[in-house]
């Protein structure tokens, strides 16, 4: 019995959410006294693969095939389940990223495993029964999911654990998976990724703005603030509906649910549907000219005033802080 962690790469690089899954898997392995191995699919160079050892994982299974250069959930799920059997894993950990969400149920179905998706805690283990927490009802509640099947698949919510270093040497094993042609009924035609920006789903800091900004031409102050913080930008639904910002930035009940360490809301009233997507952020800062705005009720820090005056000042203050 062992723990297998699938670490996702984007163009050969690991993201922080991937490193978090390594630390999580290592912690589960320590809890259960089982060995742990990582699985990497696609083209990742040796130096990058060796960084896996930094997080206490001594072994990497590498599946690097031309066919698997691009993400096809069916084929990747087949590889993950195949490798899980190969290493005798009864626990598979992956990220609850967009691709992780597509993979996890497939892998669980293949292994006839219990699935903890959106996991936000380490398991509480009693024999074969593991309890794992996840947020439900759009962050209005937390559910304790009890995994009763022997095999478990855990999809870890980004920003739930910090990657922690426990350096060890890494052994890399190449593996030839059993995949079938029928696993490739989807073909990736094109990928457009804004590489210069921090991706919203796993950003540690998010600067978000709403209708209070009046129009798309005013987003410069938001972007400048995001830039000093190394943050991703987000927006409320009316803003993306009006086409001021792309839909991919829309957070809330019908948009993306995020849980960054810091969420800064500018000119957003704090409607319940908006809060649904952001209330599990660790720290919330609200800037709004209306002292009665509901967002202040769920904020840690607030500034009452005009965003057009406050945001540039905050950017300046942060620059001063970063410079010394």
């Amino acid at each position, binding site marked *: 019995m062992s723990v297998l962690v699938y670490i996702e790469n984007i163009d050969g690089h690991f993201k922080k959410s991937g490193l978090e899954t390594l630390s999580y898997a290592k912690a589960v392995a320590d809890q259960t006294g089982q060995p742990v191995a990582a699985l990497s699919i696609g083209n990742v160079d040796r130096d990058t693969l060796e960084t896996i050892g930094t997080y206490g994982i001594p072994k990497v299974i590498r599946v690097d095939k031309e066919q698997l250069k691009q993400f096809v959930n069916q084929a990747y799920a087949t590889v993950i389940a195949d490798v899980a059997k190969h290493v005798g894993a009864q626990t598979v950990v992956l990220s609850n990223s967009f691709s992780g969400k597509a993979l996890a149920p497939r892998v669980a179905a293949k292994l006839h495993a219990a699935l903890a998706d959106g996991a936000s805690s380490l398991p509480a283990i009693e024999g074969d029964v593991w309890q794992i927490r996840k947020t439900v*009802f759009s962050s*209005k509640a937390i559910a304790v999911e009890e995994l009763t099947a022997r095999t478990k698949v855990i999809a870890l919510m980004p920003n739930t654990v910090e990657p922690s270093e426990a350096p060890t040497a890494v052994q890399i094993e190449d593996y030839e998976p059993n995949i079938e042609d029928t696993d490739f009924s989807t073909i990736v035609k094109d990928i457009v990724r804004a*590489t210069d920006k921090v*991706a919203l789903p796993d950003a540690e800091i998010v600067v978000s703005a709403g209708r209070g900004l009046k129009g798309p031409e005013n987003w410069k102050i938001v972007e400048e603030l995001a830039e000093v913080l190394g943050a991703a930008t987000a927006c409320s639904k009316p803003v993306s509906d009006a086409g001021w910002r792309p839909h991919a930035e829309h957070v809330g009940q019908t948009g993306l649910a995020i849980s960054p360490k810091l969420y800064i809301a500018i000119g957003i009233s704090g409607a319940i549907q908006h809060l649904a997507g952001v209330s599990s952020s660790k720290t919330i800062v609200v800037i709004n000219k209306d002292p009665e705005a509901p967002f202040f009720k769920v904020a840690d820090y607030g*500034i009452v005033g005009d965003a057009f005056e406050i945001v540039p000042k905050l950017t300046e203050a942060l620059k001063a802080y970063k410079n010394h």
Partner: protein
Amino acid sequence: MKILVCISNVPDTTSKITFTDNNTAFNAAGVQYIINPYDEIALSKAVELAEGGKGTVTVIHVGEASSEPTIRKALAIGADEAVRVDAVPRDAWFVANQIAQYVKSQQFDMILTGRESIDYNGSKVQGYLAELLRLPSVSIAKKITVEGDTAVIEREIEGGKEVVSATLPVVVGTAEGVAEPKIPNMRGIMAARTKPLTVIQPVEVDSLSRISAYETPTPRGAVKLIDKDDISQLVALLHTEAKVI
């Protein structure tokens, strides 16, 4: 083209979420139920694809008779027929198995689900379903076009988008923007009353997990207001107190 849309019934977005039985069960008393908003978008897309005699739309829902208003609404939006699997939707694994069982007895070219449900916030049903049926799947679809036996789908990925082509049949999880939400009109509502709704019996499914308890998130302390003329204080607090910068 035959399209199946999987519909789940969820508490309205403004519902107060409470629990009963010592925090082990969701308290449905007084809760208004709606079609899961993402499923409604999926349905709108299905109706759009089938328009002008290009296909038919079936909706399937796993749930008890009490969710029939949701099914009628789906018919009013434009589905041609509905199927209800008469069972409590215990969890995603159970629901996916019921739907898979039904699909195996039919021939669908496309199966649509919402990208996730707003109650348990899972996106498990689509993945389970695709795997149980051994079909390709594409999640977080923002755009779908069908040509012959191929669907071209634009899906959201972290920080960008990806265009995927899939051979039908395919399972697709739809996101906002894939279609304009269709609002039922009077004619639709009238027609919905007489459209066929078939009730079928569930199959047995083993249980792999269960929710054993619910907790409510710990409320944040009162907001600390910072004077707008003393912004460096916020920076200091974010560093020393919140420790997030």
